[in-house]
């Protein structure tokens, strides 16, 4: 019995000591702008609440966004002809089936639309903005041409720069890894919170996985003018 009590006491001591050091370490990292976790922040908010709160118009947008993916694409729905296909892009069966992508309340763009946005000369002038929602390692390893980075988990570092461009852009396309990665959704929520209008935000669900699988052009930091 005494051994049990002692063991329990040791467990409590270890947990308390670990908790103190953990919180102190996390706080120190935050202070020095290193990777840290803000303990009261919900990192997984998709922003539905904010969209609904924006009013009845937005309710409709949300209703549209809740429909099956085929109906969710307002750009394609209004265009009479097919968007121009990017020369050289074969259409292999590498895209994930629609039901593998997580649910979200935002508008989407297809691979072809993203390809034409990348090719569009207006994009380099700031009319369209591509936002990469992945972390440093992934972004530095290669991103869509002209895309700026906005890491949802280190907003402080990136938001101001991206907002400056996002406010000037008509269309903002956010992507992350693709598949079941939700970081692009959280970034959309961050942008809405920062005042970017819902209508200018689009998600590219296929993401980096689809873009690189189709051997599309990419760039790395320091090798192109458009990206930062």
């Amino acid at each position: 019995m005494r051994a049990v009590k002692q063991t329990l006491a040791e467990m409590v001591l270890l947990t308390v000591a670990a908790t103190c050091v953990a919180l102190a370490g996390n706080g120190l990292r935050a202070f020095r702008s290193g990777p840290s976790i803000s303990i009261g922040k919900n990192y997984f908010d998709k922003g539905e609440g904010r969209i609904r709160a924006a009013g009845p118009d937005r309710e409709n947008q949300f209703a549209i966004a809740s429909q099956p993916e085929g109906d969710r694409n307002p750009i394609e729905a209004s265009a009479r002809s097919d968007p121009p296909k990017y020369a050289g892009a074969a259409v292999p069966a590498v895209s994930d089936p629609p039901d593998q992508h997580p649910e979200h309340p935002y508008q989407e763009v297809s691979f072809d639309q993203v390809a034409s946005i990348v090719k569009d000369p207006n994009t380099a002038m700031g009319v369209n903005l591509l936002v990469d929602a992945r972390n440093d390692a992934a972004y530095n390893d290669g991103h869509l041409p002209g895309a700026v980075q906005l890491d949802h988990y280190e907003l402080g570092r990136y938001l101001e720069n991206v907002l400056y461009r996002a406010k000037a852009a008509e269309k903002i396309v956010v992507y992350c890894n693709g598949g079941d990665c939700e970081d692009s959704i959280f970034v959309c929520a961050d942008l809405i919170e920062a005042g970017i209008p819902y209508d200018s935000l689009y998600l590219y669900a296929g993401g980096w996985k689809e873009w690189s699988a189709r051997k599309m052009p990419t760039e790395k930091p320091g090798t192109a003018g458009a990206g930062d």
Partner: protein
Amino acid sequence: MERPEDADREAGDGGGGRLMAGEWTSGLRRADDTGAPLLLLRLALGILFVYMGVSKIADPIAFLKGIRLYDMLPETPPYFLNGTAIILPWLEVFCGTALILGLWIRGAAACIGVMLAVFTPAIFLRAMHIREAEGTPFFQIAFDCGCGTGEVVIWSKLLGNVGLLLLAVLAIVARSRKFTLAWLLRERVAPPVA
């Protein structure tokens, strides 16, 4: 007088059927008294958990995203997920270090045992969800369990965790306190005056 172990040796003990319980435990006790088995257990568990804890501390966001995938903690209020992501890696480091130093051995081994007893069913349940959702056969399921080791084949991970849990239990049961920091200080740094 015939010793019990002689009877066993004569009987040809290959199948192990003639071992007497009392002799077996006293044999284990003798082994434990050398201090070597517990030292090995402590070092194995300790180094492993320090390593896993440090790799989580190095990338706290990845660990946070990893725990969320288990769907075991509520997303709001955020304190559960965030608190676990901040504290658990350090608990692993503290317990691992305590074991290596031979400090609070039972408490550290018990904490590690509790962690394993919680993680292992969680990993199993997640594997079962994947099996239902994607139809992958159980023995082919692999994912990043968030343990600090990257993507792993799940059945071997589960087996490994059960083994570690067993090691933790053995570390709790063992009684030797040789080769601990306290023992070192007593025996080598300040040996009792003869």
